[in-house]
Structures are given as C-alpha cells and as structure tokens.
C-alpha cells in the first residue's frame, strides 16, 4: 500500500464521518461541524495529491489548500451568523423545525 492510498483512505473516512454528521444531526451547529470535516477531508486530498504528484516542488497544492481554508473560515463565519439569526428568529436551531420553505 503506497503512502498516497493511506492518505486517501483517511480523507475518505474523514469525509464519510463529516457527511454522516451533516445528514443525521438535527442541531444546525453540528451540521456545520460536519461540513467543516468534509471540507478538511478535501484539503487533505489536495495536499496528498500535490505531495505525491508529478511536480511536488511547485507548491501549487499547498497554496490551493490555504485558499480553501481561508474560504472555509469565511464560510463558517457566515454559517454561524445565519445560525444565530435563525435562532433569534425561530427560537430554535433544530433543523426539522425550520421547514417553512416547503412546497
């Protein structure tokens, strides 16, 4: 088993845990945490493919990951802001209770 496969497996495991959290949790904050896990799994993939790819000297993967982390931070800030607003508005963060947009 090459080191790359090990990394990819860890990343896949991480993504699955995140996805399971995002799909099953009813608390909006926990769903956000799940999404963060999934993002970081993707970052791990980026680093791994860079390190074991054809041009490891060009730093492209690392820069890409740093961008992704920065965007994820912004996204977390927006997400948490939304959650606070929803909580203020609906007095709950339970996602099953927030279903007024149904058809």
């Amino acid at each position, binding site marked *: 088993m090459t080191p790359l496969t090990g990394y990819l497996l860890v990343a896949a495991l991480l993504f699955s845990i995140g*996805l399971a959290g*995002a*799909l099953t949790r009813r608390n909006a904050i926990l*769903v956000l945490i799940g999404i963060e896990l999934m993002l970081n799994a993707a970052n791990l993939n980026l680093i791994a493919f860079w390190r074991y790819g054809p041009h490891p000297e060009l730093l492209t993967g690392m820069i890409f990951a740093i961008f992704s982390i920065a965007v994820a931070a912004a996204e977390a800030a927006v997400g948490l802001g939304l959650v606070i607003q929803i909580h203020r508005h609906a007095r709950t963060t339970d*996602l*099953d209770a*927030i*279903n*007024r*947009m*149904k*058809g």
Partner: protein
Amino acid sequence: MQEAISFTPQLAASFIAEILWLIPALPVAAAAVTALLGRSRRRTSATLAIGALSFSLLLSLVAFAHVVSGWAHEAAVRETVNFTWMQVGTPSGAGHVELGWVLDPLSAVMLVMVSFVSLVIFIYSIGYMAHDGNYTRFFCFLSLFAGAMLGVVAANSLLLLFICWELVGLTSYLLIGFWYERPAAAAAAKKAFLTTRVGDVFFLLGMVWLFAQTGTLLFYNHGAGAIEPTALAGLLAAPAALGLTAAGAIGLLIFAGAAGKSGQFPLHVWLPDAMEGPTPVSALIHAATMVAAGVFLIARVYPLMAAGAPLLATRVLTQAGTLAGGTTTALTVITWVGAFTAVFAALIAVAQNDIKRILAYSTISQLGYMMAGLGMGGVAVGLFHLMTHAFFKALLFMGAGSVIHGCHGEQDVRRMGGLRSVMPLTFLTYAMGMLALCGFPLLFSGFWSKDGILEAAEHWSVAKTPFYMLVFGALLTAFYMTRQVSYVFFGHWRGHKPAQESPAVMTLPLGILAFFAMALGLIGTPAWPWFRAFLENRAAGFTWRGFMEPGLLTLMATSTAVVFLGLGLGWRLYGGLAPRPEEPDILEKAAPWAWAGLRGRLYVDEFYGVTVVAFYRWWARVADWLDRRLWGGAVAGVAWLFGQWAGLSRFLDTNVVDGSFDKGCEELSVGGGLLARVQTGRVQTYLRILALAVAALAAILIWSSRS
C-alpha cells in the same frame, strides 16, 4: 314738398360709427357676467344690467347727435362698417357672407328709443321683482334681450339682423316662461316660440332667396348692398310665380317673418298669452320693443318693399321712405293685413277682463296701425307711431304692473275699482298713457302719430276701405280703454285685500314715460314734421301752414270726434257704475252672442286647435306608429339576429375554447401539486438527495471508465 338731400357716399366711417357695435355688445357682456354670478348677488346683477345699458344709452345719444348734426349740415349720414364673416359658394362662384352695422337716421332714433325705454323698465324692475327669488336670472335675461334688440336695430346685414332677431325670440321665450313652475307660463312660452317660428321660416326663405339673387345680405354697401338701386333693379327684372317679381316675393316672405314677430293676424295668437311673463317683460318686450321689431324690419327693407312702385321710379331708392305715391303688391298686402289686424284686435280687446290681456290686444291693434302706416305712408309714418306707441304702451303696461303689484297679484279688472284715490300717482300716469293711446287731441303724442297714419290712409291710391277700418279701430280703442280705466280706477273697491300705492322706484319711471307720452308728439306735428323730415332727410322747417294742407283740418276734426265718441260711449256705459264681478257685463246683456264671440277671442285659438294642432297630433300619431312598427320592427329584427349570433358565439366560447383551456390548466395544477411534495423545506433532505446523486454520479463515472 322739398326735395330730399341725397345720402353722400361715406368712405371712411366716423369714430362713433366704428364703435357702434359696443351699444349691443355692452348689455350682452353684462348678461354673460351676470350668468356667472351666484343667485344671491342681487344688487350686483341689477347694477351691471343698468350700468351697461346706461353706457349704451349714452353711446346711442352720441350717435344720434352725430346723425342730427350731419343732417343739419345738409350731409345726410349713412355710415356703414362691414366685414366678411365667411365665404360660401354661390351659383356665380365664391361669395362672401358679410356682416356689419349701420348708422343712419333710422337706426339712430331706434337705438335711442330702445335703450331709453329699456333703461326705464330696468329701473322699474328693481321694484317689481324685489320679492322674486330669481332676481339675478331675470336681469341676466333682460340684459341679453336689450343687447339682442339693439343688435337688430344696428345691424346692416339681413343675416346679422336675423341672428339678433332669433336671440330676441329666445329671450322672449325665456322671459315669458320666467315663472316656469306655472304650467300656463310654460305653455305660453312654447306657444310664443313656435308661432313666431312659423313666420321666421318664411323670413329665412326670403333671406336665402335674396342672397341667391343678389349675392349679398348687406343692406347698404356703397351702392352694392341688397336694397340699393343696382341690386333692386336686378330683383325687379327677375320674375317669380303668380305675376310677382322676385323683389315682391322676397318682400312678402320677409313680411311673413315680421308678421310673426309683430303679432299680425293670423300669427297674433301668441302675444296675449305672452302676458304670463312678469309685467316689466310685457312692457319691454311685448309692447315697446320686440314686437316693434317686425315693424322696424319692414322699415329697414322698405326700399325692397317699395321697389317698382310707379311714382317712386323717378327718385327711386336714393333713400329709404319717401312718401309712396304708388304702391306695390308687398305694400298692399302689408296695408290690408295691418288694417285688418287693427280692427280685429281692437274688437277682441273690448270684451277682455284681464288688465294685461286688454293691453295685449291693444298692442296687436296698434301694431296693425303701424303696419298699415308703413304700407300706405312710408317709413316715417309707421316709425313715428312705433316711437310714440313704445313710450305710452310701456307706460300703460308698467302702470298695469303697478296696479297688479298694489292689488296683490289681482289681474281681473272686475275685482278692482276706485283705485284713483288709493294710487294717485299710478292713476295720473295711467290716464295720460290711456289718453295718448286713444289719441286725445293736440296734447298727446298718440294723436299726432295716429293722425299721420289716417292721413296717409285717406290719400291711399288703392282703396278707401283701410281708412274707414282704421277710423273704426280708433273708436274702439277709445272705447275699450275707457272701459278699462272705469273698471280699474273709478267706482268702488271690489277686491278682497285693500290696495296700496307702489314704491317710488316704480312710480318714477311711470312719470318719465308719461312725460314722453305727451312731449313726443311735438316732433311730429304737421306744423313741425321734424321726425319725418329727419328720417327722410329733408330740411325741417316750422310753419303754421302745415295745418293748412287741404283736408288736414277736416281729418283732425274727424279723428277728434271719433275719439270723443269712443270716450263718451265708454264713460256712459261703464263710468262709475261698473258691475259687480259676478254680474254679466253691460254689453253682454245687450248682445250675448256677439259678446261671447269677442270674449272667446273670435275663436282663432280654437280654430288652430282643430286644424293645425289637430293635424300635428294626427301626424305625430302616424309618426309614432311608423316609429314603433316599421322602424322599431326593423331595429328589433336586427337586434334579434345579433342576439342569436351572440348566443352561438357564447356556446362555442364556453364549450370549445374555455373547455380545452380549463382542462390544460387542471393538468398543470395536478402536476404542480405532485412536484410540490418534493419541496419539504428540510435542508438535510436536500443534502441527502444531493449526496445520493453525487454517489450515483461517481458510480456511473467509475462504471463507464471501467468498460
């Protein structure tokens, strides 16, 4: 007789002639402003009307003075101001319809008379209408009338005259029906309007014919007017039917219009009914001015009426109104109609009991005198009687108004009596008007003007009968006026509430008019025929020898005797012993059947009722039947057809168009309902589907890359 001064052709009109249009325009403007005022602005409306008319009177006097001074300097004034109103096609190419106004002796004296009498009556109306709720409306109509009447007088175009003529008719209608809540007043207004319309149709025909023949409707236009020699020669040359020339036929048509307005038999029926209007209206419109418009019209187109008269031929048409030596068909007709009307109406007046109705028939009778005077003696003779009559008849009507006002609305002379002591001012002025109307010798204007007519009748070349008719009419006039005055002012009071004298604002105008009823005679005596000389543009000189003309003194004596006979007879029968209201009249006891006939106004109204009115009723029924059955049926058929067509369209619409559309909508709605269930509103469900979809996509990609 001195030779006339001929009218000098006037190239540039003087300033007063240029602004002559202001005289009719001012009262019309006042009427327009008054129409916009509220009902409560009583004082403003009266001030406006009287103020505007005062200015008109002032301008009229200036114009009159201008004409008199021109005449005194032997330069006869006839100044015209004309302008083109519009262009129309005529047989000979494009023609102009021109309007304009004229300042000549005829219009000058009429302007002064109309504006003066109107002003006096306006002032009188302040008192008479003081308690009426529609005071502003009254003054609005009155101003409009005065403006229109002044327009008739000043017009230099038959068309402009006709326009004002119709305006005068309209205001007459409005004022007769002023108290429109009374059915009798509304009916009288309609009757007046329709009856005069009969004459106006002929007038219009005559006007159109005149335009077709001469291409102009101007009276005077520096030799090119319709009643100036060139045009008249053309009219005389053109033959019409029944041996008449075009001039004669047009003259007769125009006379029909004048007869309608001036209440000549057989179109006189509207005038007695017109007394339903307020008394100032009766005085102003139906005694002094409007009914005289017909006489004025004949005087205005006199050259047309007299065209072709044998003796006139030499000094033809250099001027209006020389003493006609010969006569024409038109003038003969005018004379006979006038003379007949004079006697006919005087007869009816004998048997009337309504104070205003007696005066109304008297007016018709006097208008007959004027027409006869025009027909036999020329413009000056007819016009002089018009002038004097305007003053004393306005006086009589206003006196009657004062009596009615004082008797609390009572109009039946049998329920009055003894007012001599209660209303001394009214009695005094009324008596003067009455004596002027009877033609009391020497002192009163009516004597001189009536004498002029009788003198002309005596010398008439065609027949002597009109003379005897007019003398008989004079006898009747004196008789019925004595009867009326005896009833109203002598004897004892037979009414209910005690009478009272009217306020000064009403008696003062009476005094003014009474003065003129006497004084106006001075300008028309045979010794100093100023009025006639002025109208005919001859020099006027004072000479006692005027009385020495052959037969004149005999005539005056005859007329004096006739007047005294009438007065004496009336006083003998009615003086002091007027019967009680319930008792039959003295004459009724003597000749019941004749009395009944006169009482029933010789059944002219009834005759029209069974002929003209019945015919129109029948014709209206025929038209109604045609309307309902024929035209109505056709319309109903078309309507039914379209109804059916619409029904078919509706069926197709509901079942074909709407049905398919509704079905489609239903399907769409069901589909939408199904899809809406997917939209649960739960984020995690969406996420789940997303994840499954990504997994499925990944599976497909892997699967496809394998094979």
